[in-house]
Every structure is written in C-alpha cells, then in structure tokens.
C-alpha cells in the first residue's frame, strides 16, 4: 500500500464536529459531505484538497462523535491516508471499516509542512517528502486491521469471509 499527495497539517484533538459538523449529517450523499470536509478546522480544505492528499495531525485525531460521515467526507474529498500521533478509537475503527488508511506516526506532524508533496510507503513504514529532505517513520498497521484495509473495508472483508465459508 502506498500513496502520493500533498500534506494538510492539523494540530491535536481535531474532533468530528470540525471534520463534519452535525448540521450537515441529515444528507448522506458523500459528495455533499465532502464539500464540507474539515470545514470547522479549515475553510480552504474542501475547496483545495486533491485526490491523494494526506492529513497529518497530532494527538487524538477524530475525537468526539461516532459519526461515520467524518470518514466518508475525508475519503470522498480524496484523502488517501491520515497520519496522526494518535487516533480517537471510534474514528480509527470507522476509517479502517470504510477503507481509509489511518497510520500512527509519532513525528510526521512535527516534520512535514503544509502543502508539501509526500510519498507514503506502508510496506517500508515511511513517509518521505518529495524533496527527499524529510523522512518520517510510520508504525506498521496491525495485522487484524491490515486485512480489513486490504479488502477495501469491512463490507468487502465480511463478504469475502462469507464467500470463503460458503465454499468450504
């Protein structure tokens, strides 16, 4: 698994009300949600985010509500991965279940700058700036999480498991 994009840098405790405010949640259309992604934290994000871009944040990313639309909004907006010092647990699970890679990196938030082009190489466990000046270590994705991400999320993962069961 690898991806390439630009860095969007955020701080600690980015909560789900900042990622997608509650007032937008009665419309489940992913494009609608993406058009308000990160609205509480950055007015520029939804307008300028491009496919492949990477969110780099501090501690406790995604704290607050269990709203899965927070992940839908980011994924639909084109975000290819979120790196953070730590994640709030429900956001982490939601991201895995919807196939958005979430990776713990103790130092990415301190090393990379906004807008910088980066390449993430999950198998090598690194994020590298395109200028090659900065490399950040990223923690390996645990196996029980990786197999869900590899399947593309929980729904395809369970479908594959059920199909295997039916074939036995």
């Amino acid at each position, binding site marked *: 698994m690898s991806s390439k994009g630009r860095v969007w840098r955020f701080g600690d405790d980015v909560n789900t*009300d900042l990622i997608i405010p*509650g*007032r937008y949640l009665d419309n*489940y259309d992913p494009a609608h949600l993406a058009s308000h992604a990160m609205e*509480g934290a950055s007015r520029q994000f939804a307008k300028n985010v491009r496919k492949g871009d990477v969110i780099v944040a501090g501690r406790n990313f995604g704290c607050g509500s*269990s709203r*899965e639309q927070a992940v839908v909004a980011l994924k639909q907006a084109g975000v290819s991965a979120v790196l953070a010092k730590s994640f709030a*647990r429900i956001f982490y699970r939601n991201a895995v279940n919807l196939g958005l890679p979430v990776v713990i990196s103790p130092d990415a938030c301190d090393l990379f700058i906004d807008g910088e082009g980066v390449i993430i190489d999950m198998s090598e466990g690194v994020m590298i700036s395109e200028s090659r000046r900065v490399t950040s270590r990223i923690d390996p994705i645990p196996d029980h999480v990786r197999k869900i991400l590899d399947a593309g999320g929980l*729904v395809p993962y369970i479908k594959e498991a059920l199909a295997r069961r039916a074939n036995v």
Partner: protein
Amino acid sequence: MAGRTLAEKILSRASGIADAKAGQIVEAAPDLALSHENTFLVGKSFSELGVGQIWDPSRVVVVLDHRTPANTIQTAAAHARIRQLVKELGIEKFFDVGEGICHQLLIERGLAKPGQLILGADSHTTTAGAIGAFATGIGATEMAGVWAMGSLWLKIPETILVSLNGHLAHGCFPKDVSLHLASVLGPSGAEYKCIEFTGGHIIDTTISGRMVLCNMAAEMGAKAAVVPADSTVMVRYIGCGPLPCDPVQSDPDASFEDKLDVDVSKIPPMVSGPHQIDKVGSVEKFEGVSVDQAFIGTCTNGRLEDLVVASSILKGRKVALGCRLIVVPASRTVLEEAIDMGLIQTILSAGGIVLPPGCGPCLGAHEGVLAPGEVCISSSNRNFRGRMGSEEAEIYLASPATVAASAIMGKISDPREVLSNEL
C-alpha cells in the same frame, strides 16, 4: 493467578476465551447492539452484506432520538426507512420519535444489565457502564457487521481505577466531578482505556449520577467506563428473572494501569469553556459571561434529578430578559414524572421552553441552533467549536444547577448563591 479487571472478565465471557487479558484482541459477541438515526447507514451497509437476517434481532435496539421529530425532509425519509427496516428485520426493541434518548432508554427500560457487553453506534454508549455493563461505541458500518456476524474484534483495554471519596459540597453534582476529571485527564487521557469508578462516594451516587460519570468518560477518550453493580443497581433487577450473565467486579489484586484518588468534597461547581472539555475551571473563573441560551437536557444531564435541581432554582424566579432557557427531558418517562411533580410547570412559569424528549440542540441539528457570537451554557457533554450551530458561537458546559442559575441571572453564575441548602 493474578486478579482480573471487570473489563477483562466481561470481555472474556463475551469472547468465550477464559482469562483473556488486557492488550489481547478478541472476537466478542455483544448482549445488546444499539443504534439511533444512523440505523439508516447500518441498514445500508447491512443490505450490501447480503446476509438477509440479523444474527439475533432480540439483541438489537433501535432508537430515534437525534433529530426528533424530524427536522428536515431528509431526516423524515431516513426515519421512514428505519421504521420499515425494523419491521422487515424483526427488531422489536424499537423506540420511535419522542420516547427518549437511546442511552437513557437502555437503562430506564431495563434493557442494559450488569455484566453485559453492549455495543452502540454512538460515542456515549459508555453511559450504560452505570449499571455494571461494559459498553462501548462503534460506527454504523461496524454495527452492520455486528448485525450480520454477531461479533466484532475488540482489544481488551487497560483499566484506570478512579476512586471517588467524600461527600459533594453544596451546589456540586456528578457533572462537576466529571469536569474535574476532565481537567486531570484531558480529552485523551483515557484514550482506549476503561475507567472504573470505585470508592465511598460511588456507593452514595444514584444511578443517574453514575450515568453522568460514565457518559462524560467518553470526553476523556475512554473506550468504556463502568461502575461495578452494587445493591443500588441490583435492586432494579429483582423480579426480572435471572440475569443473562453474572454481575462482575474487579478482583482486589487486578492489574490497573493507573489509579486516581479524588476527594469529591473539594470539588467546586465547575465549568468547561469553549471549545474543548479541558478548558475547565471552577465557576468563579467564568462568572459574569453573558448567556444567550441555557440548555438543560441530553444523555448527560436530562434526567429527573437534574430537572428537580434546576426547578428548585427556577421556582419563583424568572429567566433573565434576553436569555432563552431550553429544557429537554431525556425520555418520555422523565417528562411524565416531571409533570407529575410539577417541575414542568415551574420551568414554564419561569419562562423556560420545554421541548420533546430526545437529544435536542446538543448536536446542532435543530431546536436551539446558535447564531454567530451567541453564548450557550449547556448541561451536555461537548463544547466543540460549531457543535451547536455557528462556529462563532461559544458553548460552556456545566451542571444543571449551574445552567439554571445562569439562566435566571443571564450570565454564568454560581449555583450556590441561589440553591437551597437542602439540595
């Protein structure tokens, strides 16, 4: 063998693995699976899975509470779809618009039981720890997986033991204890952990009060929060037949990651300021901030004893000119009892607005959305920027007593100055 925590015991039973330990990943089967309006999304993912039947519809609870009655055509259509879905799938534990908040109903209607594993598609599922269940939040797609497979992976958490001792001072309530804990732990101090409450003060704490403590633990990142079931809890289950599982306690020699001792008698009325739970201090620090809206309700503080305290302050007084007081009982039962006790009349006479049971304006969808520049003092659990409406509004969190005192003064005020000494 070393002793085991309550979390280890419940998750061992739910996963069928004897002696599962903190840090271990298990496949656990819930006793209850709760969802609210996001049942719309659960149903969508569930139909994609193509399994047809829910693994055990008798363990599924669906409650419409977040946007009730419907605030938009889209919400109304989602509600309609959910009503259809619960019929199709044979979900009998369905609570329609107006019955109350899901976390309130789990306990009030006796659905949650000591020793259970409860999964809820809501971050405040931790509330059910008040009766000795291990209750934790997940997302909607994951709930669809639970509906289909009857289990999910969980990492058994380490436990932080919080020992509460002493008696609360005049004007101080479980919410103040929670806000004090938030000042100690911060918004991620209990991330991935189970908080277990113990100590002499817990014995004196009502189930409503325990619900406040377990609810607010989510704001410190806790995966679950639990008060081991004691006689206060067990008396509720007398005559309800045998429990599906035994109530459990942590062993005295269990391994706890951390222990906190709190003398609750030293905690003053607390307020959390914008825009994060740990911007917290005693009410004096915030006194005098002008308030446009005061809100009493939610899964944190919308129960009968909250309305009793608030009404005692409001009785014979008026909400300040220029301030709105919005009261949302946590359930139909709470509303009925509050009517019987004359509390609703007191709130109305004081100039308050009473809205139907549900989540109310807490999540910023309706029923009291804030304008730019407005200030709300709320008995809810979150004061994130933009949570209740405009990003330029400010939310302060406090106990129902502090909210009521602030409503009559039109500014953040110390409840001790207006609260009878008997409460």
